[in-house]
């Protein structure tokens, strides 16, 4: 079991060792979250690597990753716990057949841990040999406000109350990361319990480092052009600017196509990897791509 980093620099190094190129603000807030035992609330556009942080952190620390993907209508039964009704019924039937008549014993038996189906939030409170797990609550904005209320107890006290069973408390609290794409505002009461970080698009230098770390076999010249082009395209007036995930997809697509440098034809053909809205593709298509590419290449030459 890897111990928690003891400084911001160590946090940066830890993420870097697992192939995640973080900037200092992120490393700072992550370090603080680990140190203070507070949940970390990560907000940002789709594809900037919010979920990846949790995965990398779990991998680097050697902890178990428990992921709760949120969706509309997510309830206690699928997020926290559920009783195994079929098995419980069977137990009652068997008890009857064996002549068991003591109700208290029957109830204690039926509502025991044996028949409790643990869902992600409860699993995260269980002790683990590798240390407290990393709990990723992904895309919290996809659920409704009602679900946030369940989280309040878990996030502030790291405990869950099962009426039939009692309160289950974590001996050592899990590392909690919450992500949101901001399709809805999360309530202040929940945000208050967390440390907040806005994950922004990376700057050119960091994006280059990310692409190099993830695609080491890509030609260096191509990588530089790709990053410069993506940086330029983000400055355009687009409905959805491409995220880091798109940059990586595009880079691997171009590597697959055996491209050594960007040219207008190749960019136009593969623009769908980068831009996902028809309006955006239309505004970028044709002469716009060429003009931008020329500007980017001229800038790279000058540098």
């Amino acid at each position, binding site marked *: 079991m890897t111990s928690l980093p003891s400084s911001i620099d160590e946090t940066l190094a830890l993420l870097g060792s697992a192939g995640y190129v973080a900037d200092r603000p992120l490393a700072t807030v992550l370090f603080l979250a680990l140190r203070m035992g507070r949940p970390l609330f990560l907000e940002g556009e789709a594809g900037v690597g919010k979920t990846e942080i949790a995965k990398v952190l779990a991998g680097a620390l050697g902890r178990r990753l428990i992921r709760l993907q949120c969706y*509309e209508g997510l309830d206690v039964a699928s997020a926290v716990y559920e009783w195994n009704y079929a098995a*419980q019924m069977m137990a009652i039937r068997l008890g009857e057949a064996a002549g068991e008549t003591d109700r208290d014993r*029957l109830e204690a038996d039926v509502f025991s841990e044996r028949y409790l189906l643990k869902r992600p939030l409860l699993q995260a409170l269980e002790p683990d040999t590798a240390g407290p797990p990393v709990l990723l609550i992904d895309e919290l904005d996809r659920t409704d406000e*009602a679900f946030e209320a369940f989280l309040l107890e878990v996030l502030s006290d790291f405990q869950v109350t099962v009426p039939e069973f009692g309160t289950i408390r974590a001996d050592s609290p899990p590392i909690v990361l919450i992500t949101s794409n901001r399709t809805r505002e999360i309530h202040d009461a929940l945000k208050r319990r967390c440390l907040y970080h806005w994950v922004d698009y990376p700057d050119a230098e960091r994006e280059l480092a990310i692409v190099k770390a993830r695609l080491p076999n890509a030609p260096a010249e191509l990588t530089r052009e790709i990053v410069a082009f993506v940086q330029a395209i983000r400055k355009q007036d687009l409905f959805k600017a491409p995220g880091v995930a798109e940059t990586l997809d595009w880079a691997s697509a171009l590597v697959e196509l055996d491209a050594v440098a960007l040219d207008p034809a190749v960019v136009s053909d593969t623009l769908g990897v980068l831009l996902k809205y028809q309006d955006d593709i239309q505004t970028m298509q044709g002469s716009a791509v060429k003009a931008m590419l020329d500007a980017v290449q001229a800038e790279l030459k000058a540098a």
Partner: protein
Amino acid sequence: MQGDRRTVPPDDAAPAGHLADNIAYFARALRTAGLPVGPGAVVDAIAAVEAAHIGTRADFYWTLHAIFVTKHAQSVIFDQAFRLFWRRRALVEKLIAALSPIAPGEQTSKDKPKPGAERVATAFPTGTREPPPPKRALELSAQFTMSDRERLASRDFAQMSAAEIAEAKQLIARLVLPQDKVTTRRWRADPRGRRIDARASFRRALATGGHFVDLAWRQRAERHPPVVALVDISGSMADYSRLFLHFLHALAERRPVASFVFGTRLTNVTRALARRDPDEALASASLLAKDWEGGTRVAASLAQFNRQWSRRVLGQGAIVLLFTDGLEREVTPELGAAMDRLHRSCRRLVWLNPLLRYDGFQARAGGIRAMLPHVDEFRTMHNLNAMTALVAALSVKGEDADPRRWLLPAA
């Protein structure tokens, strides 16, 4: 207020009995302004003022505040009433005179009253005039019949007097809100539900030791879909947009409402409008938006909304109410593109246009023609009847407001 160190009442010679009377008058004014102040509170207030050994005006203020205000929203009303009532010795006298049933007091009115000031101001002279002669009383009662209500309901917002606007605001606050609901994916217990609630059934079965299984049922929960309003506050729309914001404030009681105002740029006023008191909410919204009654740039504002906000507020099946006259000076393809994007990002796009009040309205203006193909409904919003119609239309899918109707004859 707190910085003011003058003693109250400023005249040291004022006997205690005078103060008690003043507090009673003040309480009466508060009651008329809408605060639930009972006679018990008056007794408490007098006792509190005596017990607190009031030294400064601020002490006096907060002592009375502690007694009379029971909700945060009432603080504004109290503050205004306090300022008005205890401002100066002369005014105190004047107001006491106004409150006494002998002589009618003078009422000063300012152009831009503070939030809640209007209601407080109208609270003071009430009950001050002599009982009117019987004949006049008849006239007065005749003014508040149904026909008066109907006349007000069909009156154009822009032509309303200040008093009529005040009355319209009250009617808006009492409006029956739309009952539209969408089913969510969340379940709730419902004895008439269609699905078996296994968990609850099982718990019930245990009560009989598993001999009987009394089934519990559940149903999909329903909720009001959120409303997102984009309100044009340019000069040509100002008379209408203020009352429309009152409507949004009333609407926000039941469902999430995200409100944006735009003139030359877009401002999110959702938080400001979330205040409980409508006047206070409107006032803080006006502070946020710097471009009231200026020009308008619809295309740029909509594009800004699409880029910065649409993904954040339109996610939950929102209905968009777009409140603008659509009179864009320069009509560019961007306007159509922005409208198209907005239309495809929301569940229902309703365009409210006060220009539609004219009988001979035709979709001639370029901006209107560019925007119309992209809306689901096209309605007017210029009086209370139109507001009621909108409420009815939100409750059901409005077929009568098909925007294509306006494009056909002019084409």
